[in-house]
């Protein structure tokens, strides 16, 4: 019986703690922060916009929508300004974010169960086919043409067409707005490339000027050049530990397939010949692809030991800490981290440029090879508040929000005009995005792609760890794809 008294005591203590924490949490409710207030004022400056939102508020005040997206600077940046949207429209937004794999899972689960738990969903563009062909998304046409829902500053022509087309248009129908313009390009240590000692040494060793590489052979040589042991010098300073010339995103995750596809395309390879997504056109084990994989694997020699665990942020952290001091191919939004003084030792030292090519694709009329990787904001066809969801997406891509988020270095904006804003144009990672978007390659957006991508991860990973040769891995992948595709 005395046992029970002990138990009761603990329960009471626990309850008290809970109550205390609850009060603490309630006390921290916020009123509109100064930055959010500034954004709100920007909206009210334009009378037409102000009027528009007044009538929206009258119609939709009190609605609540559920939005889901992926966790990144753009979602965290957006989260800070959600109260502005609520002020303008009276619509409450429950904004959930998860990391990449998890968010895709949740959204697909919701779709499959026809649950309608999310109104606005952020979907990676390569899954668009999966959603559209299963009938899970609402076309945007009616929303965009509806006067009551159409913002005066919507200005569709300003949206980067390459981005919008790849993210949200399928079979000629628009299913959403692009949420970010992510693309891959070259990262390199501009300061080291311009260092006189390094330049001289490089010329002596390789016979040409140290500069952002135009071919993969040059890329590899630069990677080799910057891989140094502890005690050697780098730009005049003695190294306290070993440094590496490059890094690959070699972990078994989405980053791996994206990065490898970037290499493959610039080697002239690909998955489907001519982009026609039919079984007969499968070229996933072509000689170009094998060459690309061999080359990709060979970079392990100049990559840090943890490179086979890296996801998207692996190279970012490596550059931040100057573990890698050469170059690599990475995403534009990852570069934000490099320019963050709190975490990065290389602020202002990085340069961004075009991805090297193995094959001169300019003969095919392409100015370069970049890998596009954006997302679309789309509306579930089971949503109970589709108009409110549309208003939210429209608000996110409004020039005001895009500009402010880009200025805060939270987003790679989806509007052409935003790239001309001074802070954006002067921010190297974003400045380099424009040119990279000129000619981009896309992953197949067919429904089978999710499964194909998963198999690709396994194949690439097994090759990188040495279990399979490049040819074996790609041959295996080819046979799997033949099974997966109709």
């Amino acid at each position, binding site marked *: 019986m005395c046992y029970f008294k002990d138990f009761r005591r603990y329960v009471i203590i*626990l309850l008290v703690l*809970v109550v205390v924490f609850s009060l603490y949490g309630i006390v921290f409710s916020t009123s509109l922060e100064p930055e959010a207030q500034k954004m709100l004022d920007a909206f009210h400056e334009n009378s037409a916009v102000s009027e528009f939102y007044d009538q929206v508020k009258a119609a939709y005040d009190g609605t609540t929508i*559920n939005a889901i997206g992926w966790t*990144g600077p753009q979602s965290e940046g957006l989260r800070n300004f959600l109260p502005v949207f609520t002020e303008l429209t009276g619509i409450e937004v429950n904004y959930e974010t998860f990391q990449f794999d998890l968010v895709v899972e949740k959204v697909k689960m919701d779709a499959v169960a026809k649950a309608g738990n999310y109104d606005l969903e952020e979907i990676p563009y390569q899954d668009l086919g999966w959603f559209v062909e299963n009938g899970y998304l609402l076309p945007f046409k009616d929303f965009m043409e509806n006067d009551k829902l159409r913002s005066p500053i919507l200005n569709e022509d300003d949206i980067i067409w390459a981005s919008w087309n790849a993210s949200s248009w399928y079979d000629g129908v628009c299913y959403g707005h692009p949420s970010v313009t992510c693309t891959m390009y070259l990262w390199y240590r501009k300061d080291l490339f311009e260092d006189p000692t390094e330049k001289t040494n490089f010329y002596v060793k390789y016979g040409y000027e140290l500069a952002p590489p135009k071919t993969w052979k040059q890329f590899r040589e630069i990677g080799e050049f910057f891989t140094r042991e502890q005690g050697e010098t780098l730009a005049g300073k003695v190294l306290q530990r070993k440094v590496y010339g490059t890094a690959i995103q070699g972990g078994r995750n989405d980053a791996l397939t994206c990065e490898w596809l970037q290499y493959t395309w610039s080697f002239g390879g690909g998955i489907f010949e001519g982009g026609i997504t039919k079984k007969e056109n499968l070229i996933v084990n072509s000689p170009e692809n094998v060459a690309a994989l061999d080359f990709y694997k060979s970079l392990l020699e100049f990559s840090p030991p943890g490179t086979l665990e890296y996801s998207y942020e692996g190279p970012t952290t490596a550059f931040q*800490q100057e573990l890698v001091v050469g170059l690599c191919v990475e995403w534009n939004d990852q570069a934000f*981290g490099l320019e963050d003084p709190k975490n990065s030792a290389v602020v202002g030292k990085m340069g961004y440029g075009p991805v090297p090519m193995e094959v001169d694709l300019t003969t095919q009329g392409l100015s370069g090879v970049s890998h596009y990787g954006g997302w679309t904001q789309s509306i579930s066809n089971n949503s109970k508040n589709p108009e409110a969801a549309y208003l939210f997406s429209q608000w996110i891509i409004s020039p005001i929000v895009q500009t402010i988020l880009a200025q805060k270095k939270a987003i790679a904006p989806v509007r052409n005009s935003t790239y001309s804003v001074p802070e954006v144009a002067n921010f190297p990672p974003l400045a380099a995005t424009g040119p990279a978007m000129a000619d981009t390659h896309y992953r197949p957006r067919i429904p089978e792609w999710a499964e194909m991508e998963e198999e690709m991860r396994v194949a690439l990973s097994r090759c990188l760890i040495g279990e399979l040769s490049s040819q074996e891995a790609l041959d295996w992948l080819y046979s799997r794809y033949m099974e997966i595709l109709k």
Partner: protein
Amino acid sequence: MNTYRHNRLNLLKRIMKYSIIGMLVLIILLPYAWLLLDSFKERIDRFAIPPKIFFPPTLNNYLYAFVDGGFFQNMINSLIIALCSTAISLVFGVPAAYAMSVKKSRLGTIILFITIMTRIVPELAIVVPLYNYFNILGLFGKHLGIILAHVLYNIAFVVLLMKNFFEQIPKEINDSGLIDGCTPLNSFLRLSLPLAAPGLAATAIFCIVMSWDEFVYSFILSSESTKTLPVAIPTLITLFGAKWGQATAVSVATMIPVIILAFIIQRALIKGLTSGAVKG
């Protein structure tokens, strides 16, 4: 001379024994100590090579996680779900366990078998139909959905453990109640249940801990506002770098209530398991 050798041997044995225990405690506690340490580190200190043991501590990780990140809401969710699912599991499971312990019947055998099966089924296989099913009933993202899933998860334990505890109560006590004119229900409530109280407490704590730690059902069936702590942890490992600071802070927060419970549980659990073992 024999005693001398004997003492030496004993001493050796004792040294070995205590050093093994020392090592054991170290192996168990070191990872947690490292976790705790890390939760107070700023990012720069975390990635430092060689790893730092002394550094200026900060509470920022906890602040970001709980105030900005809303993880304290997750904690509340975990608590609500753990308590409710335990209560429901007990209410539904204890009567059945009692009935099984008192008398062997065909129905009881079938129920026991199926109950054990609920434990065997891999959560991942069953969660998709469960999700579909709960959505139709409108239970998605509500606490009740996750609570019910956790009841499913725990019910086997409740039945097995309580059956064991009830079997320790001498049959005569049950029968004496009946002889005195009690209804079976009364006999159960007034006699058997109070006697099995320690076992009940142990089972309850066990269920709370299992529910608190559960991941698969919580992840699939929860929404932003009803997420539990274990679900929140993988969300901190993002494409833009794992927010290790917050992740370790949240992990510590997930651990502490459980550790407190561990100190309560060990007394009751050992008692329960010990007396149970007597019977077989």
